[in-house]
Structures are given as C-alpha cells and as structure tokens.
C-alpha cells in the first residue's frame, strides 16, 4: 500500500504535473471544500452525507460521486468516478454519478484538455476516495469500539471479523461526516483493483440513446428568449454599422444590438481567443425566428486596423499581441510559407555538427510536408444559456475551461466572480475548440442587456467561420547519408501560420549524433487554438512519413529502422532534454508489430506504420489499405498504446478508434481555405467530413499492460495515423503524399474518393 498525505502530496503533485502538461493550473483548496458553507450547499436531499467534495453517501448505502471535469466525449464522467469508487471500495452498481458544477474552491483543475484529466486527476481522485473510506472505517471503529486497523471494507460493506460486526457505508455515513479528515491515508495496491481496469458503460448512455436533455443547447427555462449572432464576414473585418430597422418588425423579433466581448481595460488570457470582439445580437421568441432575422440584417463592415493588446500568459507573465490588418488568402499564405521554407529559421536544437555532415554527405534527401487550416466542427455548434439579472449571473454552457472564462465574464459583465455561477453542460464535442469560451460571454452580455434568460445558438455557418482553427503548417526534413547509406545527420525546419508545429526535443532527437531543428512562424489575423494534439497533429505525420522514406532509401524495414534509432536513444542518448522514454516508445512498436502480424503481410494489402509520443503516452499504428473498384479503402488499423494503467478499457478503445477515424478523415479530406479573409467553406456540403463509408472496416486498439500511472489518451492516437495512412497509400499507389488533404491528389491519380 502507498501512503499519501491528503494535503501536501496533492499540492506538490499538481504543481509538477501542470508544468509537464504545458497547460495552466487552477487554484486548489480541496480541504476547505470539505466543509461546505451554507452558500456552497449543492441542494441535495438531507439523507445524503457529504464526506468530501466528490463523495456523498446516503443512509441506504447509495453513493453519489461528482465528476469534476467537463465532459466532451472522452468519458471522464464515467472514468473519473471509477477511480473514486475504487479507493472508496464501493460497489459500482450502487454508484450514481453527477456532473459537478464549476466550483474552484472545491475541485482542482476543472479543465478538459491536453489529455490531462485522468493523468492529473489520478492521485487527487484516489486520495479523495481513500479519505472517505478511512473516515467510514474510523466511524465504524468508534461505533463498535474496535481498532480501525481491524476493520476491512469490500463493495461498500464495513466488517470487523473478530466481533462479527458488519455495516454498509450508509449506516456509518452520518457519523463519518462529522469526523476529522485524516492527515494521511493508504491507497490500494494496484493488484487489488476491482473497478479500475474493468470496463464500465457510459453513465449517461441511457440518457443519450433515449434523447434526454443533456446539452446546453437543450436547456430551457420559463420566459427564456432566443438569440442569434451576426459576425463580420471575413477575418480582418469589423462591424461599422447596422440597421436595426432591417429586422425589427419581423415575426418574433424583440431586439437587435451590438455587444463587445471585452471591456477596454481587460487583460485577455491565453484562452480568450476571440476573432470578432464586436458582433450583432438578435433576440426573439424562437430559434427559427432569430435565424430568419439574421438573413435580413443589413450591416456594414469595414477593414479592421492592426490591433495590439496585452495577454496574460503562463506563470504570471504577460505578452504583447499584435493582430495584423488585411484580408488574407490561401494562395498568398502558400507563397509566404514557400519563402520561409527557403530561409534560415530560429535554431531550437542543435546536436553535433549537422552542417558539416551535410557537406560531406554522399546523398541528401529533402522532403517538404504541409497541411491546411482545419475547423474543429463540433457537432453541437457553439451555444450558451445565460441568465443575468442585476448583480447575479447563471451561465450554463459547453466549455472545456470554465476557470479561463470566469475572469472574462466577471470583467465584461461588471459582476464579481462570486456572483457568477458557471454550470457545466455535457458538450457535443470539444476537440480543443471549447477551451475558448467567448460564446459564454456573448450569451451573458445578451442576457444582461435584456435582463432575461436567453439561449444563444450559432448556426453551423457562424461556427465554421468564427475562427480558432488548427493552424496551417509546413515541415522540411533533410537527411544526410554516407556512401554506405548510413544516416549521418537529420535536419528539420518547420513553421506555420501563425505558429510552428515543432517539438524539437522529441524523437528522433536524442537518437542522432548530428541533429538540427529550426522553427519559423508567420503572423496572421486568422485566429487559431488547440485542436486535438496541437502541433503533434501535423509534425507526427511529417516526421513519420519522412522516416518511412528514409528507411526505404536505407533498405531497412520501417519498424526495425525506428527500433534501431530508439535503441541508440536508450543506450547512448544524445543530449539531455529528450522528452520521451525510448524503451516505452520501442514497446509500442514491438506490440503493433506482433498484433498486426507485420511480418506476414498479405498480397494486395498495403501497409504503413507510424509511431509517436505525445501527451505523455506512446502509440504505434499500422494502417492496411486495399484498392477496391479503383478506390483506396482502409481495411484495418492496428494500434498499440502505452498510456500506463487503463481505467476503463472498452471506453478507452472507443476513444482510440475515434481518434483514428478522425485522423483518417482529416488526412483525406480536412481543409479550410481563405479568400479575401473569408473561409471558402462554411457548412458540411463543402467542408468534407469523414463518413461511415470511409471509416476503416476494422480497428484494433491494444494497450500495453502497465502499472505506471495513467497518462493521456484522448489525443495520442490521433497524430500518428496521418503518416501510417500516407505510408500505406504509398505502398498502394507508388506515390508519396506530402500535402494534406490527400483525397484531391488521389483523385488526380484517377482514384475515386
């Protein structure tokens, strides 16, 4: 058993983890939350006894567990309570799960993103469960007058074998709730887990399949109004004026006004990304009526000047942000990127003497890869419910990051934080998009203006053209080979609009004596944000496609070639900042080799492999493609994953399957282009999404058996599939695919897509 301090371990753990994730950390005062003040009462029936912020136990032994993190489909609402239930040692059958609202005083890190929910929740949730269990044991010891260490628990039952005394948790809950919180508690041995590692179905499954209201867009209260928004038609434009009379008088229309998301003196934070700070809001009696009015609104737009503002960054720093003026085009993006590819970039890592090696190389291979902007396209468009009256606000909306919008809401509404309640809705998809929650501020400002509850809904066109996209990227890889085809040096130069995708200290850095990594970026007024595995979602595809081509040039099996490099990184690493574990990396390649029967390939099945490390997890994937009726068909995908302990295996496999489908879809079809600042695609008739017919026929997700603490899962299966697919398509068609999306090039090669 591991003993953990209920206070200090938690704090230090969170500090360390937050740095590793690259994300931000929320303030934490969990113990304060264990003694709720009357204002903090969650309004549950009196027969429930709260043992801590996460756990309530009823007199009958039923258990309510609060899932702290917002749910966007990664199933944390099931897996986080599984961790609590395991350490509480209760029976999963008797567990009810509820979504916690946003309570920074009670819960730490109510943030869904960066594949960090389970990783960073692991110790806090185990500690919360174990603490509640220890308090129940202490209550039983007191009631029965026996030593606590003689009491055992199992499936929600306390037992003292020597005296034959037995009670269910409910019988001790009222006493336990009055006891002191122990300073130290014991965690279970991993080998004793009964819930973790055993698949549990989605706790909201029944509600989802029967159409119950679960999403913010489903919310309705008495007297609620409906709102639509109109934003400028292009990046680089802003509102000049609008004619209120163009829509007033239309059926059901109550009001039309413009709103400004930010107050002038407000210092934006990293997640405040907003393309159009000033928009027009139309309020009425129904969604259809405000959407009709939207089409009729007469507004004038003008070119926006360059803007500069301060933005709060990580660790209390602030940075100056400049948003350039101008109406941008994809064609000019491409020509500017072509210039940057030729010019030197900023050196971000250099090992040995790469320039010298390239000079004496017998052969140099150079390849450039690129990918366009992508829209997240969550199935549930941006929307939010808000009820702002006087000095109080209730906001119910889809957000991955309530903490990062709370300050914005407070500033924009002029209402103190303590008077604003953010309730967390299940999200119809997130993928990073809902880490940026200006839609909540928009709804709140509309409600404040009309002093009535309102539900604001974006149309698909609003959603797709409002920015916060995955950036467009490019990466140029060069390899120096000697006359015997030995790899002498590797050079990567990567950049994008407006950020570089490079992770300079990741593989193959550390495996090569001579390595050079350079970065560049081009400013833009097209807003970007986190998109499932930011940066990795491009650079993995470029790197792993290049390694495939290199292996072929060196006449090596692509898996063996990677394993050789990883062996070098393990036994004699170059440099000290390599942020991956070569052994675990090799482990997933070996597992995928075995599970895909890599060495027994069938004729007519074209295989590609790829492996990548991100979000603290290791993934290798093999894609099998066949050509059927002149059409590339992805037959099978095999994935091997090392994400430490897997909480909920079937659900984890589901997440992996989804990430693979997502990657294949974006590799084939994902593309957003711009013409005079305006996105050229604004709905699913032109923005092609992967559909049932294009999904792989089979996906196998295999997890490495592990006793390591859990790491990321929502993102890591996504980045490697781009290259596994490209490498497989190369085998199928004899052509390499350097530019995403692949479908147009396949069609040029006379294949149907």
């Amino acid at each position, binding site marked *: 058993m591991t003993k953990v301090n209920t206070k200090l371990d938690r704090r230090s753990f969170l500090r360390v983890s937050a740095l590793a994730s690259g994300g931000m950390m929320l303030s934490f005062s969990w113990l304060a939350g264990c003694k709720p003040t009357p204002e903090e009462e969650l309004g549950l029936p009196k027969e429930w006894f709260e043992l801590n912020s996460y756990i309530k136990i009823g007199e009958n032994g039923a258990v309510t567990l609060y899932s702290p993190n917002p749910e966007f489909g990664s199933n944390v609402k099931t897996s986080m309570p599984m961790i609590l239930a395991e350490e509480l040692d209760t029976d999963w059958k008797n567990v009810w799960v509820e979504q916690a609202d946003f309570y920074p005083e009670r819960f730490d890190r109510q943030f869904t993103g960066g594949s960090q929910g389970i990783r960073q929740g692991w110790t806090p949730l185990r500690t919360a469960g174990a603490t509640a269990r220890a308090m129940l044991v202490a209550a039983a010891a007191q009631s029965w007058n026996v030593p606590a260490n003689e009491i055992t628990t199992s499936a929600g039952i306390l037992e003292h074998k020597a005296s034959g005394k037995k009670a269910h948790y409910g019988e001790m809950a009222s006493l336990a709730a009055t006891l002191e919180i122990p300073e130290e508690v014991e965690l279970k041995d991993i080998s004793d887990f009964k819930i973790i590692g055993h698949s549990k179905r989605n706790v909201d499954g029944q509600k*989802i*399949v*029967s159409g119950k209201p679960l999403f913010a867009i489903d919310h309705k209260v008495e007297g609620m109004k409906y709102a639509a928004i109109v934003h400028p038609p292009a990046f680089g434009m802003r509102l000049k004026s609008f004619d209120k009379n163009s829509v007033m008088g239309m059926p059901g229309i109550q009001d039309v006004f413009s709103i400004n998301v930010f107050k002038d003196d407000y210092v934006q934070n990293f997640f405040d990304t907003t393309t159009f700070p000033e928009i027009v809001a139309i309020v009425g009696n*129904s969604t259809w009526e405000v959407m009709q009015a939207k089409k009729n609104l007469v507004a004038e737009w003008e070119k926006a000047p360059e803007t500069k503002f301060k933005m709060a960054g990580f660790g209390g720093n602030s940075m100056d942000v400049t948003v350039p003026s101008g109406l941008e085009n994809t064609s000019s993006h491409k020509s500017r990127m072509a210039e940057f590819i030729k010019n030197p970039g900023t050196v971000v890592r250099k090992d040995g003497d790469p320039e010298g090696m390239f000079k004496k190389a017998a052969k140099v291979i150079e390849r450039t890869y690129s990918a366009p902007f992508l829209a997240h396209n969550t199935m549930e468009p941006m929307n939010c419910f808000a009820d702002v009256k006087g000095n109080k606000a209730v906001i119910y909306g889809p957000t991955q990051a309530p903490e990062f919008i709370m300050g914005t809401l407070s500033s924009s509404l002029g209402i103190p934080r303590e008077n604003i309640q953010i309730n967390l809705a299940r999200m119809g998809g997130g993928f990073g998009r809902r880490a940026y929650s200006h839609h909540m501020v928009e709804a709140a400002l509309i409600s404040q203006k009309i002093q009535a509850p309102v539900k604001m809904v974006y149309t698909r066109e609003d959603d797709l053209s409002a920015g916060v996209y995955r950036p467009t990227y490019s990466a140029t890889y060069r390899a120096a080979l000697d006359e015997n085809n030995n790899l002498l040096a590797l050079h990567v130069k990567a950049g994008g609009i407006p950020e570089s995708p490079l992770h300079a200290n990741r593989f193959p850095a550390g495996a090569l004596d001579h390595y050079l990594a350079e970065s560049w970026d081009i400013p833009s007024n097209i807003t970007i944000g986190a998109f499932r595995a930011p940066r990795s979602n491009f650079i993995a595809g470029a790197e792993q496609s290049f390694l495939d081509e290199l292996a072929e040039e060196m006449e090596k099996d692509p898996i063996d070639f990677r394993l050789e490099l990883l062996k070098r990184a393990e036994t004699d690493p170059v440099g000290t900042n390599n942020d991956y574990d070569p052994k675990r990396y090799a482990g997933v390649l070996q597992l995928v080799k075995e599970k895909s029967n890599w060495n027994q390939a069938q004729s007519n099945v074209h295989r590609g492999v790829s492996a990548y490390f991100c979000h603290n997890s290791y993934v290798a994937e093999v894609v099998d493609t066949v050509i059927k009726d002149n059409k590339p068909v992805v037959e099978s995908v095999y994935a091997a994953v090392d994400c430490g302990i897997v909480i909920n295996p079937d659900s984890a496999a589901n997440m992996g399957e989804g*990430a693979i489908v*997502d990657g294949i879809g974006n590799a084939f079809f994902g593309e957003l282009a711009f013409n005079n600042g305006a996105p050229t695609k604004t709905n699913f008739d032109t923005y092609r999404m992967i559909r049932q017919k294009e999904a792989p026929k089979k996906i196998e997700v295999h997890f490495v058996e592990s006793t390591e603490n859990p790491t990321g899962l929502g993102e890591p299966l996504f980045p490697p599939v781009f290259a596994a697919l490209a490498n497989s398509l190369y085998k199928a068609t004899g052509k390499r695919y350097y530019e995403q999306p692949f479908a147009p090039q396949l069609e040029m090669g006379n294949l149907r897509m």
Partner: protein
Amino acid sequence: MAQFNLNINGKTQQVDVDPSTPLLWVLRDHLDLVGTKFGCGIAQCGACTIHLNGTAVRSCQLPVSATEGAQITTIEGLSENGDHPVQQAWMEHDVPQCGYCQAGQIMTAAALLQQNPNPSDEEIENAMNGNICRCGTYLRIKAAVKTAAQKL
C-alpha cells in the same frame, strides 16, 4: 403564424408557428422535444433525423406545414422506456462518445432495420452514410446495427 395539428409519438399536438418553420425547431423550441438535434441546418449531417410515416427524414429541412397528417416519431417516441432493440444495441456496444449525433444515428438505423431487417455491411454503410459522427464512432455504430438486426 398558423395552427398545425401534429401527430407526434402517437399524440396530437397543436402548435401556432410560421408555416415555413422547420419541424426541427417546432420540436425543440415549441414542444420541448430536444432529443432531435441541430447540426447543420442543410440536411447534411443527420443529427436532426426523425421518422415521417416510418421513413428517416431530416427535420431541419422539413417545413412544419408539410407534416400535418403524417405520423411523426422522434427519438423520445422510438420506444416507451428507451429500450428499442436499436437503443439496447447502442448501450451494449457503448457507442456514444460526446453523444450529440447519436439520436439521429439511432433513428436512421431504426428506419433501416424496419425496411431491411437483415442488411449487409454495404447496405448499413449506405444507409448510415448521411449521419456524421464527429467523434468517429462509426465502427461501433455498424456493430450495433448488426446486433439490433439479430434481436429484431
């Protein structure tokens, strides 16, 4: 504005709306049947799928005026207790991730199986191709349709 008598999930419901209002918004805003979802508004994603006289249709492009006299079934009315074989199969395969598109997927699948109780893989793919799942649960959807076919 005009009055319409609609037969929804076996009950007659009266609404007073503009005749051009799509059935989707009548269901969601006026009748509080929010299981039917808004995804694209142009019949491209299938999130708003309902049954009109037993056939799967996109309610976002269906004016309320065209639905009078028809039998309308929404996800809420597919079964009394959420236990239609398709819903059960969805649970068995733990299909949903975010869950937003799944009502539309289930309605399309239920209509398919009504018309073709033993669809081939290709027939399932064709029937389900109009329903986008952004989370990529397509394989589980297909497996659940097959399981439901065996139970029906």
